[in-house]
């Protein structure tokens, strides 16, 4: 048993049991994609000619259309299959970033590495990868034209939805997260604007720029991931060893946001965020979260050291906020937002909860309320970099993102 979850090892994590890593076949049948990838960072090897030829072949299979959007990290184009113009795709061209002069950005590598392993109806599909001139990396992604869940949540004027719709969306998200975790992938950036909507209404988890596989016991993971409003308390306390339940906390925040139609815990800074969490869900203490005081970051928070300890919120208060989802729904929400990660539900337990089976039955995906996204929105959605909140009305301008690959 090798202790080697380093990013360079064989990506076999997804190949268990009945899981068939579909995109892997496409990529193995075309070694050019991976070879040219390597060629970007290392000196070229002997098969350069063959690999270039194969890459060219792959590139010719798609027609790049007009530009949909441009971000700091990538440019997104509209595109389609050359032999079948009705098969639409989105092509994400990774910019050769100033930060990574002699290689590719980590986000791109992570996105390719994990997306190619995951094949699930609720996870964005990576059809192909090829490099174009100037050795730019191009990801051919599924075309998801109807915007993202954030657009739906925030358009309170023209979009109306009910409990059955919330249940359907949450279920699709929970399936996606569960599937990631079953394939040993932590997404680490779940938020409404990473949940894209396909033409048929299906919600798909996208943006794997911050994901990684589950860690071996003695390797540190960075705590500086997940957009702040959706980040669980253990990451603020600088835990270096955590598990899949970090994604479950984000799911809980998305759940609450779907109900409230406004972000549940919109902290202005890390300090502010912890204060908000303490106010909303109680202050984490040694009693309700054994061992929390041992975490590095715990003492740093004034909210915990100086202010009075907030007790866990009374049932009535939550009933007032989230009453529409019913008692079992609140039970599920609380299990997702448990402070102690050991008490938080795992993604599997979330799906096993009986709330899914209660009335009303989740809406059919065709019947879900939609919001016309249009082409520009596709660009908006895909060009973002992990950890960023979509621009627009300055909602997250001060949310800076710094990745520490320690």
């Amino acid at each position, binding site marked *: 048993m090798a202790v080697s979850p380093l990013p360079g090892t064989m990506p*076999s994590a997804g190949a*268990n049991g009945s899981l068939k890593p579909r995109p892997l076949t496409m990529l193995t049948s075309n070694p050019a994609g991976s070879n040219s990838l390597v060629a970007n960072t290392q000196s070229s090897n002997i098969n350069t000619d063959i690999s270039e030829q194969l890459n060219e072949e792959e590139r010719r299979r798609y027609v790049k259309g007009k530009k949909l959007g441009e971000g700091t990290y990538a440019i997104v184009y509209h595109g389609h299959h050359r032999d079948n113009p009705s098969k639409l795709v989105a092509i994400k061209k990774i910019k050769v970033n100033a930060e990574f002069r002699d290689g590719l950005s980590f986000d791109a590598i992570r996105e390719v590495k994990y997306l190619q392993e995951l094949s699930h109806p609720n996870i964005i599909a990576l059809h192909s990868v090829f490099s174009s001139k100037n050795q730019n990396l191009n990801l051919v992604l599924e075309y998801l034209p109807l915007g993202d869940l954030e657009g739906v949540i925030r358009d309170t004027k023209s979009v109306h939805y009910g409990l059955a719709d919330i249940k359907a969306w949450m279920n699709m998200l929970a399936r996606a997260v569960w599937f990631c975790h079953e394939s040993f992938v932590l997404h680490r950036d779940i938020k409404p604007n990473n949940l894209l909507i396909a033409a048929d209404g299906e919600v798909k988890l996208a943006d794997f720029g911050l994901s990684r596989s589950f860690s071996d016991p003695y390797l540190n993971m960075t705590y500086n991931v997940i957009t702040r409003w959706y980040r669980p308390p253990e990451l603020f306390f600088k835990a270096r060893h955590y598990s899949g339940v970090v994604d479950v906390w984000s799911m809980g925040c998305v759940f609450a946001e779907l109900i409230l139609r406004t972000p549940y815990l919109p902290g202005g800074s890390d300090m502010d965020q912890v204060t908000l969490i303490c106010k909303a869900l109680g202050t984490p203490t040694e009693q309700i*979260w054994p061992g929390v005081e041992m975490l590095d970051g715990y003492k740093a928070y004034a909210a915990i050291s100086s202010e009075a300890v907030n007790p866990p919120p009374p049932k009535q208060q939550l009933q007032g906020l989230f009453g529409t989802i019913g008692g079992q729904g609140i039970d599920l929400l609380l299990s997702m937002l448990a402070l102690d990660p050991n008490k938080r539900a795992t993604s599997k337990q979330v799906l096993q909860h009986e709330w899914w089976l209660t009335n009303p039955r989740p809406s059919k995906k065709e019947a879900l309320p939609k919001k016309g996204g249009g082409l520009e929105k596709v660009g908006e959605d895909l060009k973002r970099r992990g950890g960023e909140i979509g621009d627009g009305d300055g909602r997250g301008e001060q949310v800076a993102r710094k990745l520490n690959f320690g």
Partner: protein
Amino acid sequence: MSRLSLKNGAPKEISDEDQCPVCKSSRYLNRNMRFLVNPECYHKMCESCVDRLFSSGPRVCPVAGCNRTLRRQRFRPQTFEDIQIEREVDVRKRVAKVFNRREDEFDSLLDYNNYLNEVEDLTFNLIHKIDVDATEKKLKAYEEANKAAIRENEVLASQETQSLQAQEAAEKEHARLRREAALREAEEERRERAEGRLDVINQLARGEGNADEIARQGRRTLLKKSTARRVGTGDEMDTSDSAGTGLQFKGLRRRARPEPEKPFEPFGEVTVEHEYFVLKGHYAWDFLDTARTSQTYRAGGYDISEYCSRALTDAFAGLAVFVGEEQTAT
């Protein structure tokens, strides 16, 4: 009264129609008098009596000898003049709501007719107050026993009326469009004729060529245009007519019932199985002990079983995967 009758011509008798049997006020005193009945006993009384008597809760009917307790909520205006008919309609409505079986649910027409006969017997008994208790009991029992079927048929019926309404609306819209098109066409034709005439006059005014020839030519072009138009629209009409008769059937009944929905599957019928190993709760291995006992690992939520599961999956991932097969498969 006398003056009023003089003014209005023939004097009008104060009939039963115009007087409330409870408060004896007449239409002469209250022009806007409305009569209401309660399906409990069908004694009619005026609106103000209902307000006066029943606004503070249920009460006994004010008509002498009628000992039924009435509630204000159930008072409603009378539809039929004859109170007997009013009552019969109510009873029939109530029975039909419970006995809403359809013909296609029966094996043969005879069965259906027998069923209708049975229902009619029950209705008749209720209307004519024969064995009311026994009949009511039967009705209740049937309703209890067939709740689901009744509901289903209700839904079907409402769907049918809805689709019928939709169809009617579509037909109306179609007719409107046709009318508009016809109007537009007539307008066009009128305009063209005027233009043609103007053209002929202009030519004549200029005095070029033979007058008779010009007039004849003008008439011919007009005729040509109008026949061309008639042919074009005729074709159009044909296609729209055939679409109308060939695809839509009025009152078509859908026989096939939709399959009952499967219970919701939270996992979406995706399963992930570990073919080659069973994950145990505990592995005796020194390597894991530090992580297992460490407080910081625990507080951060680190889960050793996740690691074990991944490590075991990695170890067995290559089994039963043959590169040759994979390549031919693609």
